[in-house]
C-alpha cells in the first residue's frame, strides 16, 4: 500500500529524516515509535506530502503509494490523493477543527460523494460512536469534549473512505480513560474498513497494543523494525531495549528503571558513527566511527546495530 524508500528530509540546515525505509501493507497497522524530535512526525507528514514547503524540504527518496511515487504528483493529483486515499489525524483535535464551522459542515467537506450527505454524515458519526450528535446539525467543535473532538477528527478521516490513515499521536492530548476508547474505536474501524494504518506515537505501550509491525526511530533513522512480538520479547537494538526498560512495570516495583543515560543528540550535532553510541551500554570501539547498516536478524526482524545478533 505505502512504501517509503530512502526518505531524507531537511529543515533548514538540519537533516531530520536521514534515510528512512518503511512499508505499510493493505489492512496492516504499522507503528512508528520514537521520542520527541526523532523525526517520526516528519516521516508521517512526508507520507501525505504535508511538509510545509517554507520550512522543510524532501531532499531525496521515494514515497510509493500503490506503486506510484507521490513525490512526482502535481497539485491536482495530490488533492485527489489526500482527499480520497490518504487521511491524516493530528495530535491536537481542537486546533485541527475549524472553530467557526459546525461539525456537520466540516464532515460534509470531507465526504467523497456529496449526494445524500445528511444520511452519510449520520452514518459516519454513528460509526465513530457519536450517536448522540448524529442527528444534530448545529454542533460546534467547542461544545464537544476532547475525546469527542478526536472522534470527529477520525470521522473526517474515514469520511472519504480512504485506504491509508496516518495517525500522529492520536490520543496523546487526551485523558487516559478516553485514550482507550479512542484506541478501541481505531482498532474496530480498521477491521471493519480494512484500513491500512501508520500509527505514530512516542508511547511504546500504546504502539504495542495497536500495531502489527513496529519501527523504532532514533535521530532521524529507523534503528529497529519487526513484527510486534519480536520487538517486545527480543529487542535487539540497545535503544529499543532501553525504551522497553523505561516502561513502568509491576514486576520491578520500587526498583530502578533500566533507563537510557544521557540525552538525545541535536540534529546539528550528531555523533559521527552510530548515533546512539554515546548513550549505549553495549558500545564497542567500532561503533564510534561508523554508522551501522540495518541488518536482518531473523525473518522480518531488522536492527541497525553491529552487535544486534549477539544481544539477545
Amino acid at each position, binding site marked *: 500500500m505505502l512504501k517509503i524508500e530512502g526518505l531524507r528530509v531537511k529543515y533548514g540546515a538540519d537533516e531530520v529524516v536521514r534515510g528512512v525505509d518503511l512499508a505499510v501493507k493493505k489492512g496492516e497497522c504499522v507503528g512508528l515509535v520514537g*521520542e520527541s524530535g526523532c523525526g517520526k512526525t516528519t516521516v508521517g507528514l512526508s507520507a501525505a506530502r504535508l511538509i510545509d514547503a517554507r520550512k522543510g524540504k524532501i531532499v531525496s527518496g521515494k514515497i510509493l503509494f500503490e506503486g506510484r511515487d507521490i513525490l512526482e504528483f502535481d497539485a491536482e493529483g495530490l488533492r485527489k490523493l489526500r482527499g480520497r486515499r490518504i487521511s491524516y489525524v493530528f495530535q491536537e483535535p481542537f486546533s485541527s477543527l475549524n472553530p467557526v464551522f459546525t461539525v456537520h459542515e466540516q464532515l460534509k467537506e470531507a465526504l467523497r460523494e456529496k449526494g445524500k450527505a445528511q444520511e452519510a454524515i449520520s452514518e459516519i458519526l454513528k460509526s465513530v460512536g457519536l450517536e448522540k450528535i448524529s442527528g444534530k446539525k448545529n454542533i460546534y467543535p467547542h461544545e464537544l469534549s476532547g475525546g469527542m473532538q478526536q472522534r470527529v477528527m477520525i470521522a473526517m478521516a474515514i469520511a472519504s473512505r480512504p485506504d491509508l490513515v496516518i495517525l500522529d499521536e492520536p490520543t496523546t492530548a487526551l485523558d487516559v480513560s478516553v485514550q482507550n476508547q479512542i484506541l478501541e474505536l481505531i482498532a474496530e474501524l480498521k477491521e471493519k474498513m480494512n484500513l491500512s494504518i501508520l500509527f505514530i506515537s*512516542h508511547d*511504546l505501550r500504546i504502539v*504495542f497494543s495497536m500495531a502489527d509491525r513496529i519501527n523504532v526511530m532514533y535521530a532521524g533513522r529507523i534503528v529497529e523494525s519487526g513484527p510486534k512480538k519480536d520487538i517486545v520479547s527480543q529487542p535487539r537494538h540497545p535503544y529499543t531495549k532501553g525504551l522497553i526498560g*523505561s516502561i*513502568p512495570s509491576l514486576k520491578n516495583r520500587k526498583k530502578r*528503571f533500566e533507563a537510557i543515560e544521557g*540525552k538525545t543528540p541535536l540534529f546539528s550535532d550528531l555523533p559521527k558513527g552510530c548515533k546512539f553510541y554515546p548513550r549505549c551500554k553495549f558500545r564497542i570501539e567500532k561503533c564510534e566511527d561508523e554508522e551501522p547498516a540495518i541488518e536482518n536478524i531473523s525473518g522480518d526482524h531488522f536492527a541497525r546495530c553491529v552487535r544486534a545478533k549477539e544481544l539477545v
Partner: protein
Amino acid sequence: MELLKVKNLKKIFPKHKVAAVDGVDISISKGEIYGLVGESGCGKSTIARAILRLIEVQEGSVLYKEQDLLKMPYRKMRAFRKSLQMIFQDPHTSLDPRVKIGEIIEEVFIIHDNLSQQERRNKTLETLEMVGLGEAYLGRLPSELSGGERQRVGIARALATDPEFIICDEPVSSLDISVQAQILNLLMDLQKRKNLTYLFISHDLGVVGSICDRVSVMRKGRFVETAPCEEIFASPKHEYTKTLLNASRLHFR
C-alpha cells in the same frame, strides 16, 4: 510516624461553584511514597497547592507534624516552607525564563540562609550536582535546556531547602519515556538517600504503581479508592480504578 495528615479538605473555585476538592483525607507516614492518581481536572493539583498554602481553601486542615499549616500565621508558615517543597509538572513554565539556572537555585539560599556569596555558590553547585547537573549549567537560561534537564533544575530547587516532604505534581508526565525513567530513578535515589517523603501525583497508574507504597485514586474531587499499591493492582475494587488500570497497559507483554 505520621508526617502529614490532611483532613476533610474542601476547595470551591468561585467561578465554577462545583467543589474541585470535596472532602479529602490523606495521611502520609515519614519515608513513604504516597501516590495520587486521577485524570486532568479531578482536583489532584488543587490538593497539592492547598497543602502548601499556595491557594486558599474553604474547609479542612493540613497537619504537618501535628501543626495545622492552614491556620499558621504567615511568618511562621514561611519558616515551615523549608521542610515542604514541590516539584511541578511542566518544566517549561515552572522556571522563570529570564533567570539563569545558577540564580534560580541560589535564590533559595538568599531567602533562607545568611551565607556569604562564596558559600552560596558552593551550595548551589552542590545542589545541582545532586541532580546530575554540573557547573556548566550555572550560567544557562532555562530555554537552553532540554525538558529532562529543566525538570532536574526543578528538583534541585526543591532540594535546596533540604526538605523532608516533597509534593511531586506530575513530575514526569510531560517528558519522553526514556527521560521519564531517568527522572523517576533520580527521585527514587534521592528518596532513599535522604529518607524523603513524597506525595506523588500522576495520571499514569503505571508510573505510580512502580514507585509508590500506597495510592489513592481520585475522581471529581473525591477519593474512590485508597490502598497499598500491591492491593490496588491485584484486586482493584472500584470500576474507575479498573478503567485506569486498563489504560495504563501494565501487562503489555
